């Protein structure tokens, strides 16, 4: 068995860009300027970083433990024993 991680980089980047645009606009609309006129751009970068970070986060749902290796059933000791006990 091999472990395969399926990542979604484009989803993360697009989500980050959308969050960045949102943070950018909200910082202007509500006058959030803790870093002066750089604040909207910093907020945009923060949103983008969040999106990129989520590419490396494991999904909390659908986690599967590694399956147990299938062992072929051992031949039973009683197999064929009927004839031996016969009279």
């Amino acid at each position, binding site marked *: *068995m091999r*472990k395969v*991680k399926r990542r*979604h980089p484009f*989803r993360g980047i697009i989500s980050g860009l959308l969050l960045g645009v949102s943070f950018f606009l909200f910082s202007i609309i509500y006058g959030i*300027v803790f870093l002066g006129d750089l604040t909207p751009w910093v907020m945009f970068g923060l949103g983008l970083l969040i999106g990129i970070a989520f590419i490396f986060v494991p999904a909390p749902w659908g986690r599967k433990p590694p399956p147990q290796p299938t062992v072929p059933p051992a031949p039973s000791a009683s197999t064929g024993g009927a004839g031996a006990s016969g009279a």
Partner: protein
Amino acid sequence: MRRLIVASGVTALLAPLTLFTLATTAMAQEMTGGCLLEARSFDAQGQQIDQGSLPSPAQGPFAPKGAQDNPFGVDYKGSVDFLFRTGTVVFQNNHWAIQVNGVPVLSGADDNPLDVDESGTVSVGSAIEVPGTIVGLVHVTGDLYGNNDANHCHADAWVYLVGDPVGSIPWDVAVGALALGLVGLIVTPYSTNWETDPNAGEELHSGPLPLG
């Protein structure tokens, strides 16, 4: 790996310091080069919203305006009555530009101004045309160069576009982008699957090694 972690830590510590240093340079209003700007703003009904001057009350009749904690209020659908003076110097062959949050929005030139002052009334909506309205706090800077760039005036001020942001197009876009971004974050984390190796039991391409 250790270098990467150390570099990330150092960057995380230095980046905010650098940003703060850069930001503090943009937190105060100013007007340099001996120029003077006086302005009154009005809403769409003609009611006065705000008034102020740059650079200081000693050089103008109005209180100083434009600091980050004391921005100049403007209505996007209203107008601004302004008077700009270049001191005692006529800025011949001049060119000027205005930036909002570092983004150029207006520029122009005048090769033969006749005097040292300029006045007028401008509507904000005609300067930055978007449907609906704009509300928020923006940093406005402007530069005027004249006499073959021998003279230069620089203006720097914070402007607050007054009004209710809810329902404005920037607010709608921000809410929409936030909703889509959050949905995107939900579907971004990676999933882990366990797969059987379809090529299990592989051997050397040149054949198995002889046993014994």
